């Protein structure tokens, strides 16, 4: 499987010139240091400058991808890279179901498929730290985690049913100019499984071992950031080949200059 993935990357790189440039639809994110909800030994992490997609990848865009890369079509995808729910909201290899909207975020895609899509555009999936860094902003503040309204808005989305059927760009963009990090779908990240969460959310933990979630967790840096707890929980429940109704993705791109 490693060789297959590798050969795919080579394939994409060779044929990159045939793909349309993708730096439009992205914004520049200035890197910084911050304290994530879960970090190695609860320390500050540094995020370098990068560019992030303004919107999550849409059904329309993913359709173009599978047209160019039949390997990722519903009937042809390798079972190792996608489970049985892969693109289950599509009628067939190239067409969405009539109830689905081309401008809704693409869902029912596995991590492997999302990763391949980003790589074919010369981009990659964001890391958890990068994603959380941009997501902690609201419309006016870069780090809105201290604001009660920030948490409230996100938590109320977790209660709203069927939001994946919504269109992109419906909620206000945050201070970076990025839309829909909250309120639309969960998003794949490059290292989603780096924060290990067992199903047992209440286990006691000693500081040396891997991180475990707890509702009053010793290791979490912010006990009131319930929204973040839930994002980590969903990441912890996923396997790379899972495809889910409320799970989509977006891509990021490294910038060449380093600060």
């Amino acid at each position, binding site marked *: 499987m490693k060789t297959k993935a590798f050969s795919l990357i080579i394939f994409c790189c060779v044929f990159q010139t045939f793909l349309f440039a993708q730096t439009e639809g992205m914004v520049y994110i200035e890197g910084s240091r911050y304290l994530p909800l879960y970090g190695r030994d609860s320390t500050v992490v540094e995020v370098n400058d990068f560019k992030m997609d303004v919107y999550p990848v849409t059904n329309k865009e993913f359709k173009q991808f599978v047209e160019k890369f039949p390997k990722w079509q519903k009937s042809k995808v390798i079972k190792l890279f996608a489970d049985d729910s892969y693109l289950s909201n599509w009628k067939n290899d190239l067409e969405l179901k009539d109830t689905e909207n081309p401008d809704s975020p693409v869902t029912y895609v596995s991590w492997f498929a999302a990763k391949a899509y980003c790589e074919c555009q010369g981009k990659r999936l964001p890391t958890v730290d990068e994603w959380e860094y941009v997501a902690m902003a609201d419309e006016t503040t870069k780090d809105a985690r201290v604001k009660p309204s920030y948490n409230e808005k996100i938590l109320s989305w977790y209660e709203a049913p069927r939001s994946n059927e919504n269109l992109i760009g419906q909620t206000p963009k945050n201070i970076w100019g990025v839309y829909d990090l909250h309120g639309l779908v969960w998003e794949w990240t490059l290292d989603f499984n780096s924060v290990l969460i067992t199903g047992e959310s209440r286990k006691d933990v000693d500081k040396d071992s891997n991180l475990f979630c707890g509702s009053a967790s010793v290791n979490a840096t912010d006990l009131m950031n319930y929204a973040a707890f*839930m994002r980590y929980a*969903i990441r912890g429940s996923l396997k790379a080949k899972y495809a889910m*109704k409320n799970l989509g993705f977006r891509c990021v791109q490294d910038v060449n200059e380093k600060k």
Partner: protein
Amino acid sequence: MKTTQKSKRKLKLVKHLALLIAPMFFVACFNDKKEEAENAAEIPVNQEMIAELTAPPHVPTPVGTRKAKKLIVKMEILEEEGEMTDGVKYVYWTFGGSVPGSFIRTRVGDEVEFHLQNHPDNKLPHNIDLHAVTGPGGGAESSFVAPGHSKVFSFKTLNPGLYVYHCATAPVGMHIANGMYGLILVEPAGGLPKVDKEYYIMQGDFYTKGANGERGLQPFDMQKAVDEHADYVVFNGKVGALTGDNAITAKVGETVRLFVGNGGPNLVSSFHVIGEIFDKVHVEGGDMINENVQTTLIPAGGAAIVEFKVDVPGTFILVDHSIFRAFNKGALGMLKVEGEEDKKVYSGEIRDDIYLPEGPGIQTMPTTDEIVASEVPAKSFEEQMEFGKQAYMQTCFACHQGEGQGIPNAFPPLANSDYLNADVNRAIDIVLNGLTGEITVNGEKYNSVMTRQSLSSDEVANVLTYVYNSWGNNGTVVTKEMVEKVKNKK
């Protein structure tokens, strides 16, 4: 002769031997029962069975005498919008589509193959912690499941009792607060003693952004939950889940068993059924049985089994006796019992008496103050009767009653009263000054207090004329002068 004797002895010997040996065949039976109780982990299972899961308030069929089995439980998690009370909507996270979740009924020694299914439409991963499980997380560690997936794990029920199950995914309090709890019953070998009716009730507290009753789709309020300020405290997930048409029912003479759980997340319940007493309470769902209990405590994340026989018909209200929760937050349910009344046990209302010991007129204890004269004196006998009747109805009626019949053992009659008819001046004196002490009227003793009446001489004359000319009395007419005479005597 010898041979018959020998054979007789032989026969006797054989008989005795048989009698000695026979009991040994039955010894094994006694050992069996004990063995099973000693080590539940060793109980063998016999065949497979798909568990019958029921939505509240109903429970699955009792296990009866069945052997321990491999029990397959398929529990589906659904996140769906429901109605907390009129006009108030809430998104519940449910086991099996109901709050509380489906009731699971097992027997001690069952090996439960648990399939936890997370519907693909759900947004969040979930898991389950069953308090009946002996194992890490109560199963939570092995059942963490993403939407669109199903996790399978297995456990053996080692202890009988009534246990809570709930979701344990972070943030745990939020998952429980949104309705992810239910009950699993592990019956002992042979099952619980049979009763006529069994019901499933579970209390829970809910926390909404808006106040109690505020309309619209209410989101969960984490801060209120942390502060333990509940907006709704309800049975079975919503206000009115067990009232009106949804009430649970029974017939007079039946025994009722309630499996009562408390999902919390925060509040402890003081469970009480108004008008009934629990004959038996399985304290905290365990083996200890308390009897004749009015109100029992059910811890958050705990349960109790209450049993009682219904003897009379009526509507019996189930409440959390932390009473503002019952009447202001929704912790109220109904048990409607139909059947024949038993007046001995409960008679219902016997009668409605007037209770106005002093009437609306101002009355004081016997003294000798002056009274103001009435403005409109009666001019004729008829007027006297009319005014007298009015005065009587205002002042005397309370004790002496409408027909002057009085109240036995309390207030003497005025109707056909020998005491009254014997001495009119005495009667006038009593009305003016009151009377204490024992008197005998129409053969009955009365020992009470009559207060003096604040009536003018005219009014006294009128009322006494009325009394003397009613109800078989001697027809004396009392005049103002007679009253003045008695007054001036003092």
